[in-house]
């Protein structure tokens, strides 16, 4: 519904905007301010008790209102209206309630279809927080704090959608790139050996046999005059046999790394039947 007040100001109850007709300036009220104003505009000049307003504006919407809250929002409305040259529309009847000045002309027009912005919906929690506090004096600046809403909701939504799409695509690309490389070496385990070299156990590490693996790797290195010092990486794998007469195949590659940690060269040692001494 659009209310035209004294041919000076219009109030659109759908999006809680107050517009000054001569200058086309628009001010967006918070939802509670809007509800309060709408209650007053629909009162037909009757006096509305404070309790009625508290119930209609706050309680019905699960919010907690107080007298100081009501005063704060009335003050906001009065200042906003006064800024647009409409003074004395809201009259306080001491100890009874609030009513509209019936001498000021108010006309009503149905409003066109309109989408309420997400921003406005999000204001509710902020108001409920305010409601539990005593309100300080409201300056004209605080009226302006009710954000000026630019009617470019669709553009904002499109931008947000585009960003979300980009993020999803980026994440998917990253996920597939990373998972592909992770999958390749997923079974390998890396351990540090005595001496400082690192050993990559190709088939993965069985915690129960780490000690014997350490011993076996160091033994193979020693047997082949290979050192285990920082800057060397060992790749180790074994396919042990179940029989006691055949140990199974064992392969060890002793690699030298460059300063970037990449392999420069490797020497490999393959055993058909490793002998534990």
């Amino acid at each position, binding site marked *: 519904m659009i209310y035209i007040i004294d041919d000076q100001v219009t109030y659109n109850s759908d999006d809680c905007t107050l517009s000054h007709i001569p200058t086309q300036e628009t001010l967006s009220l918070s939802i509670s301010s809007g509800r309060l104003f709408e209650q007053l505009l629909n009162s037909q000049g009757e006096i509305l008790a404070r309790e009625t307003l508290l119930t209609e504006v706050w309680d019905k919407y699960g919010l907690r209102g107080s007298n100081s809250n009501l005063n704060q929002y009335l003050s906001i409305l009065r200042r906003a209206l006064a800024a647009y040259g409409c003074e004395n529309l809201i009259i306080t009847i001491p100890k009874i309630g609030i009513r509209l000045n019936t001498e000021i002309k108010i006309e009503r027009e149905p409003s066109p279809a309109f989408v309420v912005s997400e921003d406005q919906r999000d204001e509710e929690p902020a108001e409920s927080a305010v409601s539990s506090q005593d309100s300080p004096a409201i300056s004209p600046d605080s009226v302006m704090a009710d954000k000026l809403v630019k009617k470019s909701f669709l553009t904002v939504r499109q931008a947000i959608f585009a960003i979300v799409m980009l993020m999803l695509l980026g994440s998917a*690309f990253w996920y597939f790139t990373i998972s592909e490389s992770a999958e*390749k070496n997923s079974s*390998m385990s890396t351990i540090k050996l005595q001496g400082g070299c690192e050993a990559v156990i*190709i088939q993965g590490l069985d915690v129960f046999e780490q000690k014997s693996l350490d011993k076996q790797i160091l033994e193979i290195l020693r047997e082949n005059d290979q050192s285990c010092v920082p800057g060397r990486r060992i790749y180790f794998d074994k396919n042990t046999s179940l029989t006691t007469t055949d140990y199974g195949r064992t392969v060890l590659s002793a690699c030298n790394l460059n300063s970037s940690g*990449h392999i420069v060269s490797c020497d*490999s*040692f*393959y*055993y058909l039947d490793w002998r534990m001494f």
Partner: protein
Amino acid sequence: MLTLTLAALLLMIFAGINYFKPRPDDLPFRCSTFSLYDLSRRDGEKINFAVSHDLRFIDSKLGYLLLNGQVTFGDKVTTLNRRIALSAGHKIDSGTYRYKIRTVITATNDTTPDAVFNLLLSEITLDPGYLQLDIKQVDKKSYLIGGPLSYLFTCQRY
């Protein structure tokens, strides 16, 4: 509409990058390394192959594995210099190539008996007719090469 176009464009770009990016196991694949194969059995005779490998999968039709080094068999030491010539190869899964062994070419300086060389050949090949190797990248230019029975060596791609 604009958003959908943008999303479709990005999808195409990502798909293109993914499609055209170089795969680590793309042919030609050439790598070399040194290996010591100890094929001795416990309490058995000493059998060692100290060889340099040069593995080349030139394309899906051609390739070879060059083995060059020294063989110790008991108390005898011989020279090994043979090329396993490959043909009719194909990729049988993501990192496995199978090639037909066209022939084994023995260099004139090779003094290793065939029976001894066959011990090494049986460790590397699938059977006398085929060579099947798994290629697994472990570092930027390093690959772990696996035979049908076990990993065999780590080599550097060049």
